[in-house]
């Protein structure tokens, strides 16, 4: 286990080095990610021209929630970005065979190939949003709060990354860039807004079935001191459960893949 984690980081460092080779693409990716998010922020800003709250969340609250989600996404992007196109990048070209021949679990190799230029964009934006909104909302920014934000940001990244990894196995059969993963990932948008606005079905979807809300909504409640249900404490548990499922699903897919070949 320790050995695997160490190797994962060695691979990741290699990926980051590789990313540095394409500095211009990196900056473009970063800037464009920020731009995309700003379009979304313009939307929020426009709706607040007509109202002063959404389900009792003010403009500042909403931006804070948005920033918290961005932080989780940036972690996902940085650490687990490489699963969505395994079909096209690895399986179809047979490159996956070389990964299977390594003395490491293939999931470690695949996840270690994560290289994303958008992560930095998300991160910058999330830091700006979180810090400025906390100040505006007059929440006292203590060291403890900062550590908490980092802690839940990383765990949130693991939640979303785990969900992506589970669905990434479809790449073993589609041989293409995996729109399934992308679609599932898109569901995180639902958790960029307070879950009070949704009906029961969507609430269950983003808290129990695909617990995106634990990467944004519940931590935000906690930072705002509104955490009445203490649901925040099950976040580490959720991470563990999701990753156990992810690893098992992957092992199952590997077994299938090896009995049919490519």
């Amino acid at each position, binding site marked *: 286990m320790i050995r695997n984690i160490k190797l994962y980081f060695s691979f990741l460092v290699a990926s980051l080095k*590789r990313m540095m080779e394409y500095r211009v693409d990196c900056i473009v990716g970063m800037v464009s990610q920020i731009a995309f998010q700003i379009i979304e922020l313009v939307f929020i800003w426009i709706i607040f021209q007509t109202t002063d709250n959404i389900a009792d969340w003010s403009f500042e609250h909403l931006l804070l929630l948005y920033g918290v989600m961005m932080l989780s996404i940036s972690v996902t992007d940085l650490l687990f970005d490489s699963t969505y196109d395994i079909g096209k990048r690895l399986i179809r070209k*047979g490159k996956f*065979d*070389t990964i299977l*021949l*390594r*003395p490491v679990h293939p999931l470690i190799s695949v996840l270690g190939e994560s290289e994303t230029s958008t992560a930095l964009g998300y991160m910058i934006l999330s830091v700006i949003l979180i810090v400025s909104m906390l100040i505006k909302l007059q929440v006292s920014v203590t060291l403890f709060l900062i550590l908490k934000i980092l802690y839940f940001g990383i765990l949130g990244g693991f939640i979303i990354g785990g969900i992506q990894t589970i669905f990434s196995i479809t790449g073993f059969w589609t041989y293409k860039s995996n729109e399934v993963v992308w679609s599932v990932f898109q569901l995180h948008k639902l958790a960029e807004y307070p879950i009070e606005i949704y009906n029961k079905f969507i609430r269950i979807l983003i808290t129990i079935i695909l617990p995106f809300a634990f990467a944004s909504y519940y931590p935000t409640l906690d930072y705002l001191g509104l955490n009445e249900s203490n649901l925040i404490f099950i976040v580490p548990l959720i991470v563990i459960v999701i990753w156990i499922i992810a690893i098992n699903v992957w092992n199952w897919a590997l077994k299938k893949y*090896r009995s049919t*070949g490519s």
Partner: protein
Amino acid sequence: MAIIEVKNLVKKYKISEKEHGIIGYIKHLFHPKYKEHIAVNNISFSIEEGELVGYIGENGAGKSTTIKMLTGLLTPTSGNVVVNGIIPNEERIKNNKQIGAVLGQKTQLWWDLPVIESFELIKKMYEIPNEQYEKNLKKFTEILDLEDLLDKQVKNLSLGQKMRCEIAATFLHNPKVVYLDEPTIGLDILVKENIRKFIKDINKERKTTVILTTHDLKDIEEVCDRIILIDKGTIIYDGDKENFKNIYGKHTMIEFIVKNKNVNITLETSEEEFEVIDESDKNIKIKFNHDKFTVMDIVKLISNYCEILDIHIQEEGLEEILKEIYRGEIIDD
């Protein structure tokens, strides 16, 4: 005990039969039809430690499927593979530590990184002790002439440079068994020779078992002692390389340098199992079955027509023999 033991190995594929168009697609969705294809049909062999085995056969004969099962990439439909006491398919990662593999053009190196960094990652992956790593690196650098390549990015290397690095990467962790699938494809002669020499050296020094599949039979002639020939999923020959030639290589080529030739020998002779391949005023090339004729027979025959200045005798090479086997000219008995 043999290092590789293969018993009654079978691999069947299901191939889905799809009709064209949307209607066919929908039909397939509800009522899938499959055709069974037997890629490897009940093969058995065992390989001793330190052997250099050439695994040959035409495209689609089942070579890659076998290699994939030996490496644990593919689960056999039935039968057993044991490599150094490990069933590759069941203990894949453990098996991976003791083997090395080159799979054609698929690189195990990191494309955008300098070669040396890929080596460092491999060192970490295989947990190669420092001392061994340094020693191997130094040695491989010398034999494969990698000195100037180590700091270059893999993507900037030529095909030959890349393969040299690839080979080095494969042997860094002192694997017990190495599978080389088409390691010389597309390379120029000097690089090919370099790689062949490397394989032979390492084999001699460490008793590394090597299984080589290739289209270039010169690789096999120069590197391997043993040949396993597979055709349509079954092994049709397994044994010594020289013996293989004796059994299947029924022809000898003989070339005469002559003068004062005044007749066309092609027209004069009409023997079976005797063929004039090339003829000019100064030169005659003949291919004959050495079961039927001796070299002396041919020399006598030719001396009837002209004065012989020089003779070259050439045994049939692997390549020609295989061509004849594939064409069905040699019937197995």
